[in-house]
């Protein structure tokens, strides 16, 4: 019995050694790639100034698509904030997703809306539309409100917005996201400079939990003081600066976050729009758009902008956080499973041979291996002699490796951007990095396992009813659509 166990452990180890070495090498390569890409991006700031472009009336038009469900609390400020973005040619499409509160009434009253005879074509199928509203006041001529029946998903609402959008590009966001005023310009630029067809672009997201917000505008950026939110801020900094930028360099982005992404409307519609049953609709859409482009042999690009353009409220309690991560994990496996036929098919190029294998092997498998590893470790302690001193040293090495990578991203964030005004906040970030593997990461692993389990047992999806915590209230927030991961 003992021999069999030892043999099993041995096989597992050999696999793990190879696996972990590739993983670590991968991160080193990604970090280097990211650094160079960010540097180049920042160096290019004197070539063409946005101020000149922003005055042009010939820029590609952008429709902002933002679904709202029971957002009565903050909807007015949020919409004003979106309307005040700086871009010469854009509209704001708010989708009232069958709210049961006074969201629509508030919009109608504040922005002097009337029902209009909107010619609507359901290019992507959604729950029924009740009507379209426009303002009678010329100040708000950029606003379009779509009223629809609740479809129990953000995807369904977004699709209704995409169907109603009039411009060739659409920017997908949440109404409670606070966008920097030059967001559209920054995201749209790749669409106008790239030689290949750009089909999507995204940028970094940060936590707005402790930021000073007035009337829907960000007055001062603050590090989240909430325990759970603070770790997420750290995750965001690292994921966006280290991971995404490197993927963007090799045109390998599979995830443009649902909190902020600009898409080519034609391609998104042809790919079928957001899938309303998906739990990770943002990643799923990009996968499908990639597939569409490859199927039709059209060269394309998906670009990532290394700047923080969007601030959103992240889950502030353990329950909400775990619920969110369970959903992400489930969304991940669902998307990978759904598109499993793309794996290693030559026509899908790097999506088939690099991106999807990476997602399968690392994004998907790692939580499982962590659990297995821990189990094996505990078994070893009980059944086989383990040299404790070596074990502690080895753990220390890996821990410090992780810490180095994380601190490097914190340093870059400070070097390139430096959002926080107080020194203390930067060192809070460092402190959270020290704590993360012990105090935060296990919850993530737990949530991932739970998500996979739900996927396998096909548990009923239940997340249509989302509540939002207002910036002024302390109500519990139960959903957040902003997807990050290390991709």
């Amino acid at each position, binding site marked *: 019995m003992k021999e069999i166990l030892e043999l099993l452990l041995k096989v597992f180890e050999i696999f793990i050694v190879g696996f972990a070495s590739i993983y670590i090498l991968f991160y080193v390569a990604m970090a280097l790639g990211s650094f160079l890409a960010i540097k180049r991006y920042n160096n290019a700031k004197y070539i063409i100034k946005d101020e000149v472009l922003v005055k042009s009336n010939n820029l590609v038009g952008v429709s902002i698509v933002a679904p709202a469900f029971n957002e009565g609390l903050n909807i007015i400020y949020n919409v004003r904030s979106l309307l005040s973005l700086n871009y010469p040619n854009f509209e704001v499409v708010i989708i009232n997703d069958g709210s049961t509160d006074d969201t629509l009434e508030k919009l109608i009253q504040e922005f002097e809306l009337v029902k209009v005879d909107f010619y609507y074509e359901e290019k992507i199928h959604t729950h029924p539309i009740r009507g379209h509203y426009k303002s009678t006041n010329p*100040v708000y001529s950029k606003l379009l409100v779509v009223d629809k029946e609740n479809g129990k998903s953000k995807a369904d609402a977004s699709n209704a917005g995409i169907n109603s959008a009039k411009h060739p590009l659409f920017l997908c966001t949440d109404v409670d996201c606070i966008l920097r005023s030059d967001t559209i310009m920054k995201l749209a630029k790749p669409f106008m400079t790239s030689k290949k067809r750009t089909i999507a672009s995204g940028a970094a997201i940060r936590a707005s939990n402790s930021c000073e917000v007035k009337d829907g505008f960000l007055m001062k950026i603050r590090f989240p003081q909430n325990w759970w939110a603070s770790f997420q801020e750290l995750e965001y900094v690292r994921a966006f600066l280290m991971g995404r930028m490197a993927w963007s360099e090799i045109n390998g982005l599979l995830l443009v976050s649902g909190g902020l992404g600009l898409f080519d409307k034609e391609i998104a519609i042809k790919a079928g729009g957001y899938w309303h049953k998906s739990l990770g609709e943002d990643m799923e859409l990009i996968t499908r758009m990639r597939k569409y482009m490859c199927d039709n042999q059209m060269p394309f690009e998906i670009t990532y902008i290394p700047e923080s353009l969007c601030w959103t409220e992240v889950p502030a309690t353990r329950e909400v956080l775990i619920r969110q991560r369970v959903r992400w994990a489930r969304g991940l496996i669902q998307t990978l499973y759904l598109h499993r036929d793309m794996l290693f098919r030559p026509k899908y190029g790097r999506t088939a041979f690099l991106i999807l294998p990476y997602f399968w092997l690392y994004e998907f498998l790692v939580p499982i291996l962590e659990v297995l590893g821990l189990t094996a470790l505990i078994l070893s302690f009980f059944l086989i002699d383990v040299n404790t001193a070596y074990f502690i040293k080895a753990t220390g090495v890996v821990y410090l490796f992780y810490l180095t990578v994380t601190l490097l991203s914190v340093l870059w964030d400070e070097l390139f951007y430096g959002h926080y005004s107080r020194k203390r906040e930067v060192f809070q970030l460092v402190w959270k990095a020290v704590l993360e593997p012990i105090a935060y990461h296990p919850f993530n692993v737990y949530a991932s396992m739970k998500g996979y389990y739900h996927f396998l047992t096909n548990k009923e999806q239940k997340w249509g009813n989302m509540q939002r915590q207002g910036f002024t209230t302390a109500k519990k927030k139960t959903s957040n659509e902003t997807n990050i991961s290390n991709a």
Partner: protein
Amino acid sequence: MKSVLLIEDDKLISSLVRFRLNKEGYHVTTVEDGIQGLDAIENGHHDLIITDVMIPYKNGIEIINHSKKINPKIPVIVLSSLGEEEATVIKAFEMGASDFIPKPFNPNELSVRVNRLLRH
């Protein structure tokens, strides 16, 4: 002394305009963004408002809208940095702007226009 409220996010511009208008004998209050601008309109007394179209958090049109609600008699001069977007000019006048000055502008011309509005 007549009082002018200047809403402009570029500190250098507001500093120059203030200097120029001080020379004409006006008291100039400067604020940098739309939210401060609305506060100043609500809580202070001003004989004239000069606002840029593109200011943080709000746009000049909203400033006019708000100022007209509080006191329709206070004249508003709009500075534009939007290039030649006619729609904005039309909107500004529809909202009740007294004057519209496209950037780049001559500060001496601005002071002449201020004088005309405040000393009829």
